């Protein structure tokens, strides 16, 4: 199975990179940019074929390494 994992900064955590991108978009003339937050995206292929088992396995990966839950949220999509 393939897991698609999105990691985003928690609300309230300062995202200076997002801010810099926001500024650059504005410089390019995109006048309607109100806010940019930068995140990370992972594609993880797992051997497990049972959806529930795969989900709990990927969840454990997120908790242990992929995300730092002090500052980040994660979202898993299985395909």
């Amino acid at each position, binding site marked *: 199975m393939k897991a698609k994992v999105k990691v985003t900064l928690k609300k309230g*955590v*300062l995202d*200076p*990179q997002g801010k*810099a991108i926001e500024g650059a978009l504005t410089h390019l003339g995109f006048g309607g940019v109100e806010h940019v937050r930068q995140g990370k995206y992972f594609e993880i292929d797992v051997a497990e074929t049972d959806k529930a088992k795969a989900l709990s396995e990927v969840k454990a990966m997120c908790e*242990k*390494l*992929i995300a*730092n839950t*002090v*500052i980040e949220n994660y979202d898993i999509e299985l395909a």
Partner: protein
Amino acid sequence: MKSAVVVFPGINRERDMMLALEAVTGQKPVAVWHTDTELPKVDLIVVPGGFSYGDYLRCGAIAARSPIMKDIQAKSLKGLKVLGVCNGFQIITEAGLLPGALVRNAHLHFVCREVKLEIENNSTFFTNRMKKGAVVSCPVAHGEGNYICDEETLNALEGEGRVVFRYTQGTNPNGAMNNIAGIVNEAGNVIGMMPHPENMIEPLHGKSDCRPLFESLLAA
């Protein structure tokens, strides 16, 4: 005072740290490779600065899951003294030895300069030769030293005197909450700090302000 310095791929301050430890304590520290699974018998373990694994994923994240970290975690729970400097602070925080996280500097720039640190807690193993409130010069060199944590943790750190080092007003190089430069865990045996005291211990460094920090190790 026997010490060991952990070496990960991409770490680059381990020599400076070993030289500083040897210069002040008189004993040559042992270098420990990240794939080792057991620490030698020492009184202090130092996780030095650098760019372990090129800061892949998050600064310190990969190194924090190295084989040697299991033993560091286990022995720190039994009271082994642990000092993390710069990337070392990021690594031990990622490993859960200290609360909070270190994120990208608020202004996005890598900073490499001297800052002023106020010693807020002089009862730790790394500050007991300092006066409370003393201000020392110390270099910083990092891109991700912006310390953040939730409000509850911040209140605990402040309320329990666990902010050991604080950037003096106007010298905060990274936007860290409450100007936090270094903290200690609840038990008092794990310290993490962003600045590099190992680079300010002798006249050739420009100043030797941070030598008493290393001298503190002898009393601890």
